[in-house]
């Protein structure tokens, strides 16, 4: 018992550096807790930490580390702009179309509810957060924005020859319904899917627990 304590204490001393003896970088959170005592004034603590994070990133990941993070931010900005642009285009294309008027607003509200519910779900299902992000992206871009905008443009293109004949009546009734199914319903389905995530996976284990169980490193063998 006492030997365990000693080795743990030694280990704590060893990881005061930025890296392990094999050159691998240490976990950042642990370091900041260790190296920044609370006596430092708040501003200095924040600036020190920012400087440290930046220099640490350059030290271990080089310029690629910075560019990876910059491209991540740029990607999310482009997501937001794409959603706004797609909704604007849809709003313009469905202008004056019976049963599809204001489609852009519906599209925007749909995307917002999917992203807000997804963001909230990452707090409740922490072990599934990567998958939730993938689902959010799939719903917003794969189901709502691109197909919905294409459908709105199709509605806009066909609306010019809609008349009183059977075919026109059928198309002019069917397309807004299809738009509803493409743009509005997925938001509800997404909420249902997220709310039932635990029962879909039928497991409340996180990755670490599951691997420990499968590889029999769970202590049950002793």
């Amino acid at each position, binding site marked *: 018992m006492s030997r365990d304590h000693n080795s743990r204490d030694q280990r704590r001393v060893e990881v005061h550096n930025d890296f392990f003896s094999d050159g691998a970088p240490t*976990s950042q959170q*642990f370091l900041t807790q260790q190296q920044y005592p609370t006596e430092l004034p708040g501003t200095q603590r924040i600036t020190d930490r920012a400087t440290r994070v930046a220099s640490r990133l350059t030290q*271990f990941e080089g310029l690629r580390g910075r560019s990876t993070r910059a491209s991540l931010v740029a990607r*999310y900005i482009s997501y*937001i702009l794409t959603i706004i642009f797609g909704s604007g285009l849809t709003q313009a294309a469905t202008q004056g179309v019976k049963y599809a008027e204001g489609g852009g607003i519906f599209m925007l509200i749909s995307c917002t509810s999917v992203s807000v519910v997804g963001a909230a779900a990452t707090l409740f299902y922490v072990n599934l957060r990567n998958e939730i*992000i993938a689902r959010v992206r799939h719903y917003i871009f794969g189901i709502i924005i691109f197909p919905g905008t294409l459908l709105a443009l199709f509605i806009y293109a066909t609306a010019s020859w809609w008349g009183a004949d059977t075919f026109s009546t059928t198309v002019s009734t069917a397309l807004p319904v299809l738009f509803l199914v493409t743009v509005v319903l997925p938001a509800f389905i997404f909420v249902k899917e997220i709310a039932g995530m635990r029962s879909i996976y039928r497991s409340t284990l996180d990755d670490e627990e599951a691997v420990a169980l499968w590889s029999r490193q769970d202590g049950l063998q002793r």
Partner: protein
Amino acid sequence: MDTLGAGLITMANGLFDLLISITNPLVLVVVAMALSMSWLALIERDELDRLGSKPEIGQH
């Protein structure tokens, strides 16, 4: 004093106008979407940070 009062009232009116234009539902929807997207971006960045470091396990 009157000039000061008039100036303050004009500034307050401008502030209220700004507030009214910001609290337009459409803007609120866009802001909510942008905020939740930022949260997802933070999570992805956190995952990147975790990939870039060796995990520390008390006893392995």
